[in-house]
């Protein structure tokens, strides 16, 4: 790829170089290009600062000149940026739908930085890895790579005493106080036992002062040294990038801890420096606003990029803007697989019931899987038909063998058989998965559950819904599903009537454990499950207070009360944005007409509808009422990208980056893919983690130590 590109564009770059560069630097750039040409280039980035990707190794000799020709050095920098940028763009063909940037580069950057960090630690060492980092790490660097860098044994962090004979221990962890405390205990235990070891903590994606303070307080600061692996983004697929930070949701929205705001900003900055700047940024939500500010600050610190952007528009959205969507049962294939089998880091483990053997199989689910990529966005009801058609085609392809002569047979085996066998394997896996999902869903009376959800979304027969939920609780079936229905009821109805709230809560505690008192407190704080504040009570309180204190205080108090009674306004929003199609209309799920197909035609995901509307209007104008009901915090900013003028109509303008802060569901991704197809654009989803109703609610449980 590099070579072919180079031949094509050599001239252009020579021109670029001579026009921009100080002559003494020209030579170095040429050499760099030459090395790119023959494919012998070292990782060309600064290992410690991955967001400044293309500085190294090139910038190091340049550094020496910096004191006299600082400006020259930045010229080198931007020249290299544009060179590499076009290198990288060269292989993306633009046709009707814009192609997507190659995100595998992000993996390579992360891997190289990790290797760099490991190389800083000479000698054999045992590596302890946080459990939830194992899968992401696996996508970046396999065991062989770790072994090559003198990692002896690998352990999972279990917060228990360790058995390791190594003299050097390295811990690759998320910056969590609990883990750091555990490490401190290990070190202190070693000290007591008179054992000498070296300890290194590599925090990823960054370290926190609070963690270092723990080391200090435990008296092991200095015995343990720390480092950072700035592994911000894991590409899960061509169009899905994940920060793999599920705790973002609880930390930010429940605890009100903004520790990940900068992380999200840094992730955007990383994307920006690798793939080009953005011309327009939209967003909604408190966290979105903060992330944008943090990102802007980082941009100001960095140097101005003048490269042509690969995606021009960015949309930031807080998860708490739309809680309804992630609480709905998913019925699109990929979402359903996630709900039932839990897709972890782009891979799923199918048990014996799917594989129809006694073994479980781990399968990567992404666009590489030709069968999966065709059904992932389909409504589940279409999947069976599709799979059986596929099976027939496969049979026909196999049948071609009949009546072949030797030569043809040879060609068949050489060219086609392998592909067919691969397809065969995938096909039987997905058929097995579909069967297993059907069975599970029939067992839990899925139809009735869906009916209740749809009634709630529509605001229809609420009493019946409450009875259904009550029975669901009484039967002690799925604790999470009961909670999910309660939350859905509360959000769609702007809170529960006091009587209902008390009775349902009491029954819930009886069925699933009284310690869920704490869970209810959390849900209440988040506004997910609330008791309606009677309108009168509020005014009575206000007038009483009004007699006692002056007007100014009353104003404040009223604010406090109204924030307490903060409403989800779902019904009004739904009406305004036409989220729920009129009932009675036929909806052909095989030929979806809008994004509602991801929920059987019953509901258009609010988050996706907002994105659609804002992109259409190029801002929030005309949506004042909607944003007011969403508690404001919306913004639209034209970015500082200077390249917008001439190229504003390029393909890049048709690639939109959507960042979900607090997680996004596969249903939303499917809906955006659909929207993209309709509008001739492509969406790239950046999310703090993939979520679904179970993950979302589990993050809010407080029923165990």
């Amino acid at each position, binding site marked *: 790829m590099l070579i072919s590109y180079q031949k094509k564009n050599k001239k252009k770059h020579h021109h670029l170089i001579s026009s921009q560069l100080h002559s003494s630097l020209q030579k170095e750039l040429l050499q760099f290009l030459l090395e790119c040409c023959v494919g012998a280039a070292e990782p060309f980035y600064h290992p410690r*600062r991955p967001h400044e990707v293309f500085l190294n190794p090139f910038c190091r000799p340049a550094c020496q000149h*910096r004191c006299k020709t600082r400006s020259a050095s930045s010229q080198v920098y931007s020249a290299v940026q544009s060179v590499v940028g076009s290198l990288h763009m060269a292989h993306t063909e633009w046709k009707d739908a814009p192609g997507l940037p190659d995100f595998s580069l992000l993996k390579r950057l992360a891997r190289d930085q990790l290797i760099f960090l490991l190389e800083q630690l000479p000698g054999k060492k045992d590596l302890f890895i946080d459990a939830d980092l194992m899968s992401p790490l696996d996508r970046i660097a396999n065991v062989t790579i770790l072994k090559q860098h003198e990692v002896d044994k690998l352990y999972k962090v279990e917060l228990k005493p360790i058995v390791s004979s190594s003299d050097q221990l390295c811990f690759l962890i998320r910056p969590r106080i609990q883990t750091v405390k555990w490490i401190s205990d290990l070190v202190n235990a070693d000290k007591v036992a008179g054992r000498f070891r070296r300890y290194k903590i590599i925090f990823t994606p960054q370290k926190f*002062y609070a963690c270092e303070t723990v080391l200090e307080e435990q008296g092991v600061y200095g015995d343990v040294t720390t480092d950072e692996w700035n592994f911000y983004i894991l590409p899960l697929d061509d169009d899905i990038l994940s920060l793999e930070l599920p705790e973002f949701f609880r930390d930010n929205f429940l605890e*009100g801890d903004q520790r990940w705001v*900068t992380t999200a900003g840094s992730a955007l900055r990383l994307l920006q420096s690798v793939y080009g700047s953005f011309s327009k940024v939209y967003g909604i939500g408190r966290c979105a606003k903060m992330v944008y500010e943090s990102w802007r600050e980082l941009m100001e*610190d960095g140097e101005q990029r003048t490269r042509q952007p690969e995606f021009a528009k960015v949309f930031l959205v807080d998860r708490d803007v739309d809680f309804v969507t992630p609480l709905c049962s998913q019925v699109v294939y990929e979402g359903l697989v996630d709900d039932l089998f839990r897709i972890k880091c782009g891979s799923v483990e199918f048990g014996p019931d799917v594989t129809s053997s006694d073994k479980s199989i781990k399968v990567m689910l992404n666009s590489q899987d030709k069968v999966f990529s065709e059904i992932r966005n389909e409504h589940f009801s279409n999947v069976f038909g599709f799979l059986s058609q596929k099976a027939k085609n496969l049979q026909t392809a196999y049948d071609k063998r009949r009546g072949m002569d030797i030569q043809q047979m040879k060609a068949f085996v050489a060219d086609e058989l392998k592909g067919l066998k691969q397809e065969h394997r995938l096909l039987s896996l997905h058929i097995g998965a579909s069967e297993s999902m059907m069975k599970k869903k029939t067992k839990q009376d899925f139809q009735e559950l869906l009916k209740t959800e749809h009634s709630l979304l529509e605001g229809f027969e609420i009493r019946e819904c409450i009875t259904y939920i009550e029975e669901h609780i009484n039967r002690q079936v799925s604790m999470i599903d009961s909670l999910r229905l309660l939350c859905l009821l509360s959000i769609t109805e702007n809170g529960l009537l006091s009587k209902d709230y008390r009775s349902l809560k009491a029954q819930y*505690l009886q069925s699933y454990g*009284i310690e869920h008192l*704490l869970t209810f407190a959390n849900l209440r704080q988040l506004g997910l499950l609330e008791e309606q504040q009677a309108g009168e009570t509020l005014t009575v309180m206000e007038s009483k207070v009004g007699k006692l204190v002056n007007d100014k205080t009353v104003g404040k108090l009223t604010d406090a009360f109204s924030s307490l009674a903060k409403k989800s306004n779902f019904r009004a929003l739904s009406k305004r944005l036409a989220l729920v199609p009129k009932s009675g209309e036929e909806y052909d799920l095989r030929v979806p007409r809008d994004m509602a197909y991801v929920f059987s035609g019953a509901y258009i995901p609010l988050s996706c509808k907002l994105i659609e509307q804002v992109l259409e209007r190029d801002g929030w104008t005309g949506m004042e009422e909607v944003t007011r009901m969403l508690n404001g915090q919306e913004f639209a900013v034209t970015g500082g990208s200077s390249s917008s003028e001439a190229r504003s109509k390029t393909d890049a303008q048709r690639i939109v980056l959507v960042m979900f802060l607090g997680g996004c569901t596969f249903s939303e991704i499917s809906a955006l893919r659909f929207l993209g197809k309709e509008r001739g654009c492509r969406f790239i989803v950046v999310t703090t983690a993939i979520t679904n109703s179970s993950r979302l609610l589990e993050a809010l449980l407080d029923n165990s130590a």
Partner: protein
Amino acid sequence: VSRAKPEDDEYWNSSKFKAFTFDDDDDEFSRLKESKRAVNSILVDDDDDEEEEDGVERVSWSGEPVGSVQSFPYSLLLSLLSVLHLDAHQFLFVCRHLLVGEGNRLHDLSPEETVRRMQKGRAFSLEKFRSLQDKLLLLDEAVAVYDGNLITAVLIYLKKSLSKEILFRELMARDVALRHYVHYLKEMGEQKLLVELMKALGRTEDMALMQYKEHLNIKDEGQRRDFLKSCLGLPFSQDDATHVQDHYTLLERQIIIEADAEIFKKFPRKASILNMPIITTLYYSCFYHYGESEGTYSSPENIRKTFRISEKQYILTALGARAKLKSWFDVDSLFNTKNWLGYTKKRSPIGFHRVVDILQKNSAPVNVLQEYVNLIDSPELKLSVALKYKCHDIVINTYRDLKDRQELVVYREKLERDSPEYRKIQELLNNVQIRWKN
């Protein structure tokens, strides 16, 4: 690239400067006054260059910074070296004074500058913020840049350097900082301080819940029970107070029931009842202690009364337990109600289709199942349940009553030839007295 390699290594890994020691004699110092001044003047506007060089502190295994001149551009030093004609010895001296200068400089930074340094991961010092006003300015600055990491860092410093009364008072007016502080204390497990904080803030319900949460950390059930008892006086909301009271009573009962383990010789059980929810306890009681008099703690009636369990809930649970044991007689009597004339009639607070579901899941025989399917009110629902669970008689009778000949023909095909059901349909179809609608 290979050309650049040796320099790279030296640049990043060399630690020889640091390891070097030298005499600190005045003579040398005076000789270098000039260079120090020069160096200091450079430091004033070093921000841009610094960025390239010291964004990160490099440390090796031993934890020593690699390349000790952190905040100073290496290239600049090299040129200085040549300008001032210094040898390595003298050069080190400059370095050391540079670092001292750096230290002083950190102490002169404004809250804003300090926060910016923290943001960039550079060396910083908070110790110079001694007046309350400065401390709060620092905190507000951290909040203003939205960086939770920094907010917590500042809070950790304030926690160490302010009395908790003052800190609490100031946090009251600073919601964002307060939430960071609460979260930090939670993560650090500083329960006592947290409770004090909640109390000081007047958030008594939160305080009560926070204390109640502690029970989750107590493994021993006796201790847990005692702890729950101690929670009873906490200022919960009215509803929650009832729930916590229930929690205590429940565990107390469970401990008593658990001690009476005689019964399991007959029915070995899978798990202990301790710490199970109320309904599970009720189920257990319906399973092992059914029919005991209301006076015993373990009897279903007692549990039902104590925890104010609704009739619907009670029937559901008892039904599940008795059906599991295949005591169809008990199941039957659950739904029997006598009216004042002494007739028995079957009534259920839950739909009979639900009852059928539960019976079927416990593999009730067809005759039992049929009885309850027949009790379903709605004819459509009755038919669909009968179809689902293959209650042939009911299906056939329903079609007969609907005079639906076609459905009967269709249904016949699903049956085994010459089975009694098959023959029954056959007879019906041959019956000329029925006036079919189709």
